């Protein structure tokens, strides 16, 4: 972004009220609106739908990846280039994103341009045309995504397959190589017509005037009216996926059954448990997990960190490790042992770090926008509710939660995976 725009935006932001204003509402057609004005210079706008990877059918795996990479191509009423150029000309950056629960488009834009960017957002996200000949341009971008997967990305996708087996939450966010280009325009349009509708959507704006957001949602008509789409339950089952690759390390993900989005208590307990297991501080030069953490049992040179992934109805909680073939077996077994025998002695420290983590992540407007969108679409708690709930967590809660969560494991590995124990043997 040009510095002149930033300066102008900061100046106008400073002139605005110092009071942050929040709006959370639902329109008559079912569209949800979440607006939070922190008076920042750059607006983050997200239009998201209940249309993540879990809404694909078993025969459609990879569809969401195609839809995501189709963003920025022609919309129903405007050529894609015109929309993308207009976004660029107003200083915006535009990206499309998907998780298993939601799909959407995000724009970061100087706040004076927010109303203009919103009008682009509506067409780009909710009215894609999926012109058949554009598939040829989209296919290489999908292949590029596949070629640039990171080891973490690979084990993270695989642990879902292991944990949820054949249920929809196991579907990858990425198309498999053999399905690249396999989806026809009609199939994509059909999915869009069903899912990109008001009953399924949420419009999130950070650092934007709430009334701007509401006026656009009520008056533009860019988002067609439509009904809420339900999803299929995907209980945690556990299992193994291993992917072999050359090299001297092995990336391991051990996951147990975690909290669902709308379960406030479980999510509060889970975020305290994560701190107990071990997460490094977000501050620089403080990246080793705390001495009190459960992961202190890891040998030198084996990094590990707790992770969580919450979805509608199910969730994952566990640990990500990078081991070597020689120590992989002991590292996995001792980690599992530590997870199953949680004894929380530094509860207060864990709680405060959990709250700090949440507040730090709120510093990033784009991350907050994603989290707000998921929480709004799946009845998740607001930040303040979650923090209040964390303060009520007891050591006994955490220990019991860990016991049920880590009864069974889902294990995914990438690299030299010969020595990794199978989940049944853990």
């Amino acid at each position, binding site marked *: *972004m040009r510095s002149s725009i930033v300066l102008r935006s900061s100046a106008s932001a400073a002139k605005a009220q110092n009071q942050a204003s929040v709006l959370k509402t639902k329109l008559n057609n079912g569209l949800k609106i979440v607006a939070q004005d922190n008076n920042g210079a750059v607006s983050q706008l997200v239009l998201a739908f209940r249309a993540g990877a879990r809404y694909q059918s078993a025969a459609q795996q990879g569809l969401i990846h195609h839809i995501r*990479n189709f963003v*920025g191509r022609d919309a129903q009423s405007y050529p*894609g*280039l015109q929309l*993308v150029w207009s*976004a*660029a000309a107003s*200083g915006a*950056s*535009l*990206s*499309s*994103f998907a*998780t298993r629960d939601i799909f959407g488009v995000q724009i970061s834009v100087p706040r004076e341009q927010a109303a203009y960017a919103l009008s682009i957002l509506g067409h780009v996200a909710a009215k894609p045309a999926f012109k058949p000949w554009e598939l040829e*341009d989209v296919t290489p*971008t*999908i*292949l*590029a*995504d*596949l*070629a*640039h*997967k*990171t080891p*973490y*990305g690979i084990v*993270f996708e695989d642990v879902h397959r292991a944990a949820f087996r054949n249920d929809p939450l196991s579907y990858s*966010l990425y198309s498999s190589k053999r399905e690249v280009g396999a989806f026809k325009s009609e199939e994509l349009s059909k999915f869009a017509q069903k899912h990109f509708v008001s009953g399924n959507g949420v419009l999130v704006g950070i650092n934007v005037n709430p009334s701007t957001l509401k006026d656009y949602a009520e008056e533009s008509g860019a988002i067609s009216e439509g009904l809420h789409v339900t999803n299929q339950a995907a209980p945690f089952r556990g299992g193994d996926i291993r992917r072999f*690759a050359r*090299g*001297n*390390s*092995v990336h391991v993900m051990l996951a147990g059954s975690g909290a669902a*989005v709308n379960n406030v208590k479980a*999510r509060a307990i889970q*975020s305290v448990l994560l701190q107990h297991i071990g*997460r490094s501080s*977000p*501050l*620089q030069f403080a*990246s*080793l*997990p705390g001495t009190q953490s459960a992961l202190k049992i890891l040998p030198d040179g084996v*990094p590990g*960190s707790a*992770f*969580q*992934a*919450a979805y509608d109805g199910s969730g994952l909680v566990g640990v*990500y490790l*990078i081991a070597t073939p020689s120590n992989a077996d002991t590292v996995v077994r001792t980690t599992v042992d530590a997870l199953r025998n949680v004894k929380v002695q530094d509860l207060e420290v864990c709680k405060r770090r959990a709250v700090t983590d949440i507040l730090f*992540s709120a510093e*990033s407007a784009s*991350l907050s926008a*994603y*989290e707000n969108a*998921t929480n709004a679409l799946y009845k998740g708690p607001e930040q303040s509710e979650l923090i209040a709930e964390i303060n009520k967590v007891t050591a006994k809660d955490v220990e019991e939660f860990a016991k049920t969560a880590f009864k069974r494991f889902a294990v995914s590995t*990438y690299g030299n995976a010969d020595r990794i124990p199978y989940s049944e043997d853990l």
Partner: protein
Amino acid sequence: MASLARSGGFAVKVISGSQPHANFVAATPAAASVVAFREVPAEFSTAEARQAQVTRSTQGVFSNGLAVKGINVTSRRLAHTDVTFPDMTNYRRDSTKNTQAAARDSEDQRRALPTALYYGAGGVLSLWAGKEVVQTLVYYKAMAADQRALASIEINMTDIPEGQTKTFEWRGKPVFVKHRTKAEIAKEKAVTVGDLRHPQHDDERVQKDEWSVVIGVCTHLGCVPIANAGDFGGYYCPCHGSHYDASGRIRKGPAPLNLHVPAYSFKDNTIVIGSS
């Protein structure tokens, strides 16, 4: 613009505070040539760096493992990486299609046309210039035109056997010298002069009966007649069919006059044309 729309990805450096990330580097073009790595890369050398990476990867409740594609990220476009070089194969010579071969190896093939043009056109021009030089020299050294107009030629009589006609050039015109047989002489002497279009007796046209000397230019329109041809055993003009007899008199056809007899004289064993 197509490439602009395709470029993207997050590259964020945070000095303090939470560290947002994208687990997947978003698309760069030229994807067809990119292959997924088959080896676990050892990017993070120190324990601290590895731990920091692991922590960053696992951050977030919903944005953990988020798949993001940048649609337009205007300030991060790397023109040199996303503009592919156009394929010019269709416009290249066959000899230069192999990009691995050194240029000097294909020099002969590549330079064939210029070489052919240079030596072909150049050769023709030098030949012409050479001819001009030689011609100029020859004209310069040759006899002057005023002298040549008064020149006479000598013809060796032994060179022409009886019954034959030979052609010589004299003052730019052909001269027929005919060594007549007895039968021809008798035949020409016996012709009735009154029947001729241009009445001349054979005696008026020869100095010695055996030798008839005439200028080989048809009196009709100036063609050169063919010797020993025609209905009368003399000359025949192929242009309009004038027949002359063995004394060079017109007998048939459009020509109005007999072939001219130049001034000539006998000297020992030669005929000198141009002197009387």
